């Protein structure tokens, strides 16, 4: 597939996403004003309601509402936060940085842990070490992020009196050391969650590749076993591992919602959660759209890595 | 009654490569009832595409396929059933041509029930009869395909095709996937069935020795076209087209120890079907090629009354 075709497909997906977000967040809940202002609607004068309706654009038919939302979204106007009055985009910029840092650290940790344990397990399938590796994978899969986070917070804060997330959040530019300490546990929680499926993929990909004809060819021509494992087995196994990492990234962004809440990080997840609780629909809608764009971008990158790893895909 | 294939062309559009593959190009053939037409060629020559067209799995892009005058290939809805029951197909790989989750008895009974070929009371007797015809004992009918050997599965596939009471049987490499020592048995069975049920066969194979064994007429295909056609004797004992000659010479015969000629080997690879050379598709590999071969696709012309060759150079 050519680049243009790929781009066209991404744009179609984004279009679909925007329609979906619009339907879920604006059409299904019904009248935004009544639901967002709740019982307070009664205290507004009809003129005020009309002004607000015009401001939110909900005096227009649905298609018109969609178009005006998209038009302002694309021009960088994500709307205003009802409670603070600040432009959503200003809030989003700093929150995005937090979430991306978290996601990046989480992915790196997850890939490192996942691939190492996967290789550790696959070396001797059916052995005690394999059992150990698989047991870790299963637990990492089954213990929810919020349980792990809560446990870490409880143990660290109460038994070791160490809880960097209790202090005000620092960006890496303000205080790098503090920032890294604050990122440590959240990234670890996300990393462990991501490591489980990567570990399983690594293990099964390695075991499948070991039996491939070209591995036999490599042994047959006298290549040293260590080199066969790295150059032939691992390199070919990377293809499904890359795919799985891409998929997990989406999970990780979702996990960020919970982890950011527990560890008090001002990221996208917490922004959306707060907005939901405060019933700020403009913020929710635009933030979710930003999230989706981020996710689609990650998919594009995965795709690019995939092509690098597998020369058969043009 | 006969099969006539008139000027059939099949094109596939390959979207990813933005190209068009001419899998079949102006194929014209006819088979008289009770005869066996052998079709031989290497991978990419279009022989399996032709098989799918004859049994109606796909429509031709151009041209028509008629069985005793009525259309075969085109999807005419109201004749769906009759069309399918007159031509049946036996696939190469007996491991994948039977539903793995159906017993072999159920698989044959399903054909009889669906087309109401027998009353409910007679179905089980008919299943046993069909299995007996192909040499499978009645107590095997409760087995699943994975419990049978390759040869047995191929017999079941043949019995299932016969259940539909076909007049024309298309055999697409029916013994190529079988063990050498069971091939002869299945070939003999095919010959017996043809005589017993007065069937017409189209026998498709890359294996010239099998085609030679069973065919009355033989068509040699290369890259979507017929390059030579005639009685088996004419095509194999007096081949005209340089490709047919190379094909025959390439078969290592066990009856002729050290007989294969390794000095004069047909060089080159089969061109990409999506990117065929101008003129005769064979000219780049052909020892006889002249300038004119690069310009014009040669027509099938008569060498004798029944023997057609698509090479003007050998007819001079």
């Amino acid at each position, binding site marked *: 597939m050519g680049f243009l075709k790929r781009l066209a497909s991404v744009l179609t997906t984004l279009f679909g996403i925007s329609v979906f977000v619009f339907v879920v967040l604006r059409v*299904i809940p019904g009248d935004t004003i009544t639901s967002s202002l709740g019982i307070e609607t009664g205290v507004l004068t009809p003129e005020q309601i009309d002004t607000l309706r015009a401001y939110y654009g909900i005096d227009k038919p649905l298609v018109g509402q969609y178009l005006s939302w998209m038009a302002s979204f694309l021009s960088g106007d994500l709307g205003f936060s009802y409670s603070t009055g600040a432009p959503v985009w200003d809030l989003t910029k700093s929150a995005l940085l937090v979430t991306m840092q978290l996601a990046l650290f989480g992915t790196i940790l997850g890939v490192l842990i996942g691939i190492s344990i996967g290789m550790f397990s696959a070396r001797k399938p059916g052995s005690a070490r394999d059992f150990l590796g698989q047991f870790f994978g299963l637990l990492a899969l089954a*213990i929810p992020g919020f349980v792990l986070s809560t446990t870490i917070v409880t143990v660290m804060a109460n038994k070791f009196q160490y809880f960097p997330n209790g202090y005000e959040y620092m960006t890496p530019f303000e205080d790098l050391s503090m920032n890294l300490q604050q990122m440590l546990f959240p990234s670890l929680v996300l990393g462990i969650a991501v490591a489980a499926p990567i570990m399983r993929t690594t293990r099964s990909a390695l075991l499948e590749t070991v039996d491939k004809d070209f591995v036999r060819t490599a042994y047959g021509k006298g290549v040293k076993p260590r080199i066969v494992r790295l150059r032939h087995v691992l390199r070919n196994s990377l293809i499904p591992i890359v795919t799985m990492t891409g998929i997990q990234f989406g999970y990780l962004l979702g996990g960020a919602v919970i982890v950011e809440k527990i560890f008090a990080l001002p990221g996208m997840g917490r922004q*959306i959660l707060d907005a939901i609780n405060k019933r700020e629909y403009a913020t*929710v809608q635009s933030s*979710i759209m930003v999230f989706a764009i981020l996710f689609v971008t990650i998919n594009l990158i995965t795709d690019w890595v995939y092509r690098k790893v597998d020369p058969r895909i043009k | 009654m006969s099969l006539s294939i008139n000027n059939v062309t099949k094109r596939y559009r390959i979207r990813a490569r933005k190209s068009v593959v001419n899998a079949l190009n102006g194929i014209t053939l006819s088979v008289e009832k009770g005869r066996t037409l052998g079709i031989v060629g290497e991978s990419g020559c279009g022989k399996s595409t032709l098989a799918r067209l004859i049994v109606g799995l796909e429509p031709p892009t151009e041209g028509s396929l008629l069985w005793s005058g009525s259309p075969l290939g085109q999807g005419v809805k109201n004749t769906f059933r009759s069309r399918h029951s007159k031509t049946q197909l036996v696939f190469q790989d007996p491991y*994948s041509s039977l539903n793995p989750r159906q017993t072999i008895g159920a698989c044959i009974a*399903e054909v009889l029930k*669906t087309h109401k070929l027998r009353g409910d009371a007679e179905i089980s007797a008919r299943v046993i009869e069909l299995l007996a015809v192909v040499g499978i004992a009645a107590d095997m009918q409760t087995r699943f395909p994975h419990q049978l050997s390759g040869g047995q599965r191929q017999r079941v596939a043949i019995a299932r095709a016969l259940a539909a009471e076909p007049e024309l049987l298309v055999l697409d490499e029916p013994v190529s996937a079988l063990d050498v020592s069971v091939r002869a048995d299945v070939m003999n069975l095919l010959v017996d069935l043809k005589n017993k049920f007065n069937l017409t066969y189209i026998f498709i194979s890359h294996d010239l020795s099998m085609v030679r064994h069973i065919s009355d007429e033989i068509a040699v295909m290369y890259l979507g076209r017929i390059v030579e056609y005639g009685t088996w004797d004419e095509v194999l004992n007096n081949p005209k087209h340089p490709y047919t000659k190379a094909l025959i010479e390439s078969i290592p015969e066990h009856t002729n120890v050290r007989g294969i000629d390794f000095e004069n080997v047909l060089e080159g690879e089969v061109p990409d079907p999506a990117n065929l050379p101008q003129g005769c598709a064979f000219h780049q590999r052909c020892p006889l090629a002249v300038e004119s071969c690069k310009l014009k696709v040669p027509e099938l012309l008569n060498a004798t009354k029944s023997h057609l060759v698509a090479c003007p150079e050998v007819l001079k």
Partner: protein
Amino acid sequence: MKTSTGRRDWVHYYFKSTSGVIGLFLVLVMVILSIVSALNLAPIDPLEQNPIDALQGPSGTYWFGTDQFGRDIFSRSIDGMSRSLSVALLSVGLAAVVGVFLGVVGGFFGGWLDNLVVRASDVIFAFPAILLALAIVNSLGNSWIDTSIAIAIVYTPIFIRVARGPVLTVKEMDYVKSVRVLGFSTPRILIRHVMPNVLAPIVVQIALSLSWAILTESGLSFLGLGTQPPDASLGLMVSEAQALASFAWWTLAFPSLFITVVVVGLNLVGDGLRDALDPARRSSG
């Protein structure tokens, strides 16, 4: 060559795997506890408050201890489990029916319909699952049916993919081609010849999706969406335990254990089924 009938082979094979049996046992224990709770047979009413007994450790009366209102954590845990399992069953049931139908039909017929199905599932895939569920619950409401619908929407595309992939393969298999040549009707081909051969990965996916649905449901209630107090829910209990765990470990430990046990069990069942239903993994005969 074996002479058994092949059809029941996978059951036999499943029970040969220790981890599969353990998984089934764990799931069954949780299911039975849920039924006990659903039939109001729990030892203590999960909503009953006994302020005198607040924050008691595990004992003969309160097996898992009590929370800050003196409510019995064991009864609340099995009540929460029954709520989680109900949501998981309904959501995965919906997702499987809709997803498998769309996947099979799209894969088998292809064309614009298939394109639409694939595009639509791409769109849903472009959201992190919990975020999407969050947004939908937020729009629909907090009842367990709303939660189930939200989770069903999130997991439908997975079933579309799991069904569509094998259909594309099976459609090209010679045995499907040969029944087409035999003139069988399309519904018959789909139901009798395509479906039975794509069922295995779907069954496995159901087991795995149940575990994900439980994780998603408990995640949502942890965040305060979904089940509302005073009703019991495992996620909500963990959320409330955040403030209590430092001096009452049992408030965190037991609800967490329940979630983990049922998810481990479902995953083991899924893996066991995958091995038992895949003929390639047991083809030593």
